């Protein structure tokens, strides 16, 4: 029996979908069988980030309403033999097309077959959010070091705590700009974690390559050297129970001579 984790944030644009794709892929790289569920009905994009949009035939609403069988709607990511599957959201239905019970039923069916079921939650705290958390055993709250994001995350954590899930919600701080945090221009990791008073699952540094790889439909975790990728890989290892130290915020200063003669 697998574990269903919802990735949520309250605020939009903090990297829920990117995190879903990358945490899912990182788990698959660690030899786990993962199913990604896009619950952003009407505004789906997890398929785009994974580069699978051209293969969608049926979606989650088709499954919920009995027009398709679950295994017909699942899309296999051929890059990771049999390790990653995607259940896409519907693009032409609205958020009310699903009910929490339908989502729970689908998630429970998937949990029998997969080690992890990752639910990509839509922004906001309305019906889409309620659908997403209904089926989940635990939650990963994504926040960026901005006051608006932390404030929304606080609200979401409150709602998640009311839900009393089996696994307590955990925090991922995304898009950390090291120079700003080091200079005290944004809230630092400890401050955010203490404010939200939930345990920290990991930190992800802001990196241009994340956007670049997303656009190419290839998750950043495929590149083992990239700092954002390492952050996601560490998160996946922590999810499996390993103890992994937090990445350091200190930036490596490039010296004058290295800048002159160093390779780009």
């Amino acid at each position, binding site marked *: 029996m697998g574990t269903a984790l919802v990735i949520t944030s309250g605020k939009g644009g903090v990297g829920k979908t990117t995190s879903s794709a990358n945490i899912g892929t990182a788990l698959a790289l660690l030899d786990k069988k993962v199913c990604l569920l896009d619950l952003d009905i009407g505004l789906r994009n997890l398929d785009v980030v994974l580069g699978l949009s051209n293969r969608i035939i049926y979606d989650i609403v088709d499954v919920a309403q009995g027009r398709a069988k679950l295994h017909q709607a699942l899309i296999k990511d051929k890059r990771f033999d049999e390790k990653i599957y995607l259940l896409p959201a519907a693009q032409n239905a609205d958020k009310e097309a699903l009910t929490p019970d339908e989502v729970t039923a689908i998630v429970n069916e998937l949990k029998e077959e997969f080690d992890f079921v990752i639910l990509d939650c839509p922004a906001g705290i309305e019906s889409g959010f309620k659908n997403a958390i209904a089926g989940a055993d635990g939650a990963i709250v994504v926040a960026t070091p901005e006051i608006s994001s932390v*404030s*929304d995350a*606080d*609200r979401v*954590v*409150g*709602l998640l*705590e009311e839900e009393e899930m089996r696994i307590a919600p955990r925090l991922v701080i995304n898009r950390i700009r090291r120079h700003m945090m080091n200079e005290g221009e944004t809230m630092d990791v400890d401050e955010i974690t203490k*404010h939200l*008073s939930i345990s920290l699952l990991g930190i992800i540094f802001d990196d241009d390559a994340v956007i670049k790889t997303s656009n190419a439909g290839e998750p950043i975790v495929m590149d083992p050297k990239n700092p954002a990728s390492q952050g996601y890989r560490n998160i996946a290892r922590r999810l499996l129970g390993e103890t992994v130290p937090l990445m350091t915020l200190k930036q490596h200063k490039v010296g004058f001579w290295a800048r002159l003669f160093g390779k780009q």
Partner: protein
Amino acid sequence: MDAVTLRGRKEGFELNIDAGADFDQALVALAELLNKIRLEQPQLGSDQIELELTTGRRLLNDAQKQALATVFEQFPEFNGTSIQSEVMTIEQAEIDRRENSIHVEPNVLRSGQEVNYVGDVLFVGNLHQGAMLKATGSIFVLGEVAGIVHAGFPDNAEAVVAGDLSHALQLRIADAVEILDHQKTPFTAQSVSFINDLHVIDYGELTDLKQINPKLYRKMKEQ
């Protein structure tokens, strides 16, 4: 012992309905007693006589109170509407206990959450921005507050808020709202906020509570 006895007291007349007597018989005895007084003292009737009804360890229900009222309707020269009992229902006792005890709130109250209390609150949790803590009584703050505290909800101007509110957004006491300007009002753990004689939120030190709110001070001493 008679089912109904009339005593003269310094404060007036006390009419005791014996708790051990059958209530229907007591009503008959009461009617007889009142009738006797009416016959013996015919000059009565110009002034209505107040009778303080005591029921001892019996608690009258609504039907019994109604039956009593019907008896008194026949004797308009007596007023028997005040009924005292030595006992109360568990429900009422629970309400009283809740209103008069201090509640401890140890949780993290997050954005969008609102917690209501009847009575006083000792707040040892963490009140985040966007959350609200409401109490009908006073609020004593030990934890961190970055949201809104509302003491004396909805109209108890006797309530105070004690403690450090230096990061709070708003302070409300009864119907008064103060948007906190932290340059103007420096808070410490010994600060106390209250409603002054002009019905405006004012600030002082806990050591001055006796002068600020003597009634509350006495109540605290009694507890």
